[in-house]
């Protein structure tokens, strides 16, 4: 991005240089301390991944950002606003959409009800026809019970319902987990389309071949903190290091 544009965006954001700025974040589930000083930045319009082995703290980092974790300390700033200490239901209302790892499709709601459940928090969200255009598999399934959809369709629904809300930062937790290659391809097309539309995305991925086709930068997590950051264009040089981190 040219410097001039960068400065302009910064000024618009008020404080800090990043849209999302996490500093020395510690997180706890009851007594157990699972995040040990996470720091990362996400700039407007970027797609950033969190990579790491099982249990590294990727999901916990997203839950901490959304405020759905017992206790958090440190700093999480979104467009300059401090999220730690903010009432839980206000955080999404700032324009952060969350797609959880387990997808969270409601079985007592139809597909349409699932799609329109999250309240619109900002103007400029996508319309339902636009969401169907992005995920044609969902078209015509409106009255089906949410959990009757296939795993891939449920994932599309979980992403689709956030796009209506006008959220401009989207936290996507392992959208390709357990899905067939053709479906992963479709999800990839959709995520790229979202990036092109200007959404800022934090993506948790185990499948970094998928991540590499989409992301601008990769954060590597280990044991509850960030151990490395690799820009996507330097991925090739860092492959050995990455293999060691991920144990593949």
């Amino acid at each position, binding site marked *: 991005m040219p410097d001039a544009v960068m400065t302009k965006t910064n000024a618009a954001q008020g404080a800090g240089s990043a849209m999302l700025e996490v500093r020395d974040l510690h997180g706890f589930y009851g007594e157990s301390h699972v995040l040990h000083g996470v720091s990362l930045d996400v700039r407007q319009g970027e797609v950033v991944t969190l990579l790491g082995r099982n249990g590294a703290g990727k999901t916990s980092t997203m839950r901490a950002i959304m405020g*759905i974790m017992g206790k958090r300390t440190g700093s999480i700033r979104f467009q300059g606003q401090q999220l730690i200490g903010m009432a839980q239901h206000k955080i999404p209302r700032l324009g952060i959409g969350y797609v959880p790892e387990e997808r969270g499709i409601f079985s007592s709601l139809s597909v349409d009800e699932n799609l329109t459940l999250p309240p619109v928090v900002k103007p400029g969200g996508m319309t339902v026809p636009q969401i169907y255009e992005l995920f044609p598999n969902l078209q015509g399934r409106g009255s089906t019970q949410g959990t009757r959809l296939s795993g891939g369709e449920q994932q599309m629904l979980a992403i689709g319902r956030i796009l209506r809300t006008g959220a401009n930062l989207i936290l996507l937790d392992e959208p390709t987990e357990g899905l067939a290659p053709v479906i992963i391809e479709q999800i990839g097309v959709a995520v790229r389309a979202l990036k092109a539309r200007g959404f800022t995305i934090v993506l948790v991925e185990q499948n970094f071949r998928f991540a590499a086709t989409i992301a601008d930068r990769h954060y590597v997590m280990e044991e509850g903190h960030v151990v490395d950051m690799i820009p996507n264009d330097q991925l090739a040089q860092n492959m050995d290091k990455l293999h060691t981190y991920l144990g593949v």
Partner: protein
Amino acid sequence: MFDVLGVPPQVLFGQLLLGLINGSFYALLSLGLAVIFGMLNVINFAHGALYMIGAFVAWLLLNKLGLGYWWALGLSPLVVAVVGVLLEKTMLSRLYKLDHLYGLLLTFGLALIFEGAFRHFYGVSGQPYPIPDLLKGGQNLGFMFLPNYRGWVVVASLIVCFGTWFAIERTRLGAYLRAATENPVLVQAFGINVPVMITATYGFGVALAGLAGVLAAPIYQVSPLMGTNLIIVVFAVVVIGGMGSILGAIVTGLGLGLLEGLTKVFYPEASNIVVFVVMAIVLLIKPAGLFGRER
């Protein structure tokens, strides 16, 4: 006229009507319990006491303020809802992190306190409450005589029950409620204030009990123990229908009222226990209840 198995039709239909009236109360009360249980995971043992308070508020409005039945129909449920909201805010909400048993114990204790307090001030004997002028008299249907007020109770509770069912199963607000029942954390992560929803749900659930209390006042007498007598059967209804199932609560409430009525005709000795026999059988065959989903 023809007899059914040696029973004159007047007797049969008379008991069926009584059964339907009782069933209307079972349905209204178990519906409130189901709504509350779904959202709060609390078995609201104070439900019978709040039903009693609903009836007493109607009685007090009439005798202290001269406000009649139609006023009470609106105001009593409102008063009971406010009591419920205060209870939820100040006490129940502190217990959600603990075992469900604590919510049950708290509401059970509250029920004892409410009933004790009303017994202290009003004694155990029932206070009569007049039928409103508009609903006095009755209709001769040929095969039976239908008192207008009783017909009204059945129609009113059916409307309220199915209205509630519609609101929960078919509207946007209901979708929030269903979703929050299933996964409150995620609903909160979409920006909905779930604690406020929980408070409102409790208020609404107990308002249904308050409404049932007003409807009951002219039929049964207004007495501090009226809730205790009814609520045991209502809990059996909830168990039979399936905890937390809205339609299950309504259908089971009405059905068991009718079954009780039929038992009174054909084998009166069993009429007080038939509901519990059904409960035992249902628990053996389908532990989650007729309409319940296994969790």
